[in-house]
């Protein structure tokens, strides 16, 4: 049981995102309009350093998002992972399915919206690996500030991995900047990490990375990406997001 719980901790970046964002790892505060629908996906890598057995994992996350009303969005993700470390062979698995709600506290109307837009995202993952008695509740406070071509975001997330024998908690802070180069294209920089709030018997899975990002919106499709360059306990952490609205 403990080995399977550790697998879930290592391969669970917990950074689900849906709805357009200008960042790779950070979530934005936008939500779908009422009855709007979007298919979103991301692929991310976390390539850790020697003290974590050079663990490398690649995650693929896929989810429809639905606008409940103009400020509330429901997302139903499924997450898959590929994992390999020096002391383990490669493994591919479906990691979890989940339900998430994202609520934007202010209007998104193009004229009436304020410069600062707070939002909150909460969710719960049902881990399907191992003994199937592990859940991952998570929550992220999101704040964005927009002024002309300038956009900034801050995320303060927390995630718990709760099993019958052990619990693991981590914080997921991040900040980012994005500047509009054209109407559709943006560039910026962001910093993101995962920090253990408690310690497991097998070590601390914290990491932190900083790097450039870009975002492109084209009609109903948007793409955003970031390349996190490792600052703490990780070589790099690239992430690519893509969404298409209906």
């Amino acid at each position: 049981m403990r080995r399977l719980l550790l697998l879930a901790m290592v391969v669970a970046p917990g950074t689900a995102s849906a709805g357009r964002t200008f960042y790779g790892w950070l979530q934005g505060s936008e939500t779908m309009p009422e009855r709007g629908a979007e298919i979103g996906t991301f692929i991310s890598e976390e390539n850790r350093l020697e003290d974590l057995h050079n663990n490398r994992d690649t995650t693929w996350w896929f989810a429809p998002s639905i606008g409940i009303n103009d400020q509330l969005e429901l997302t139903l993700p499924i997450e898959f992972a590929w994992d390999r470390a020096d002391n383990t062979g490669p493994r591919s698995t479906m990691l979890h399915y989940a339900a998430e709600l994202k609520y934007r506290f202010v209007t998104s109307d193009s004229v009436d919206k304020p410069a600062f837009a707070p939002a909150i995202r909460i969710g719960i993952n049902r881990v399907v690996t191992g003994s199937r008695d592990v859940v991952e509740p998570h929550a992220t406070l999101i704040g964005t500030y927009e002024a002309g071509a300038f956009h900034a975001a801050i995320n303060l997330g927390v995630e718990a991995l709760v099993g019958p024998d052990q619990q693991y908690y981590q914080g997921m802070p991040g900040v980012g900047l994005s500047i509009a180069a054209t109407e559709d294209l943006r560039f910026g920089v962001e910093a993101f990490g995962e920090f253990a709030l408690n310690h497991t018997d097998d070590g601390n899975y914290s990491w932190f990375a900083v790097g450039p990002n870009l975002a492109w919106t084209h009609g109903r499709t948007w793409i955003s990406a970031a390349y996190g360059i490792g600052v703490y306990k990780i070589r790099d952490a690239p992430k690519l997001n893509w969404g298409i609205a209906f």
Partner: protein
Amino acid sequence: MGVAAAGSTGRVVGGVVGGAVGRVVGRVVGNVKITDADGKPSNADAIIYVVGFKEAPGAEITQVAQKDKKFVPDLVAITVGEHVKFPNGDAFLHNVFSQSTARKFDLGSFKRGDAKDKDFPDPGVIDVYCNIHPEMAATILVLPNRRHTKRNADGSYLIDGVPPGSWTVFAYTRRAAKPVSAPVTVTAGQDSLINLALTRGAEPDHLNKYGEKYHDNATTTYR
């Protein structure tokens, strides 16, 4: 072109403009003739309005309903700061949006019986469409004052409460290349006669809210 009517009634009409009770105002009257591209008379709606001064908005909320896959009415005029309500009277979803520079918005999709409200804080011409039904189109004129009216069935119009001064009268109808205008000098207690003419063309194509062409059979019956 318009000519100010001299010595019509000579009456003094009390009116309120911008809340200044007791100021004396005049009227702009006339006829707006609309013809289609084939030269035949058209009974399409036209809005006639006076620009050159500002007034506070009224408290009324204008309605643009969605009925039988049409916006009803498809041309309205409001004053800057007023609201428009969009009730859905059809048995299927509509998604009202505008990509006009003066006021971009997306009301999302809403079902029969629901209504969405939108404020218009800036002047301009707002073209409104449904993201589901490409045949639906309407125009909202957001004007700087409350001196606007729709022409009558016989083409005549009357705008009361116009302050004295030199202004410009416009007539707008959907599908005309551009509105027509004429200068007008309004004298207190008198009618100023302005006749205008417009020619309508075909309904221009438009894109959906994503900037794409509409797909065929775009109707949805989801509730």
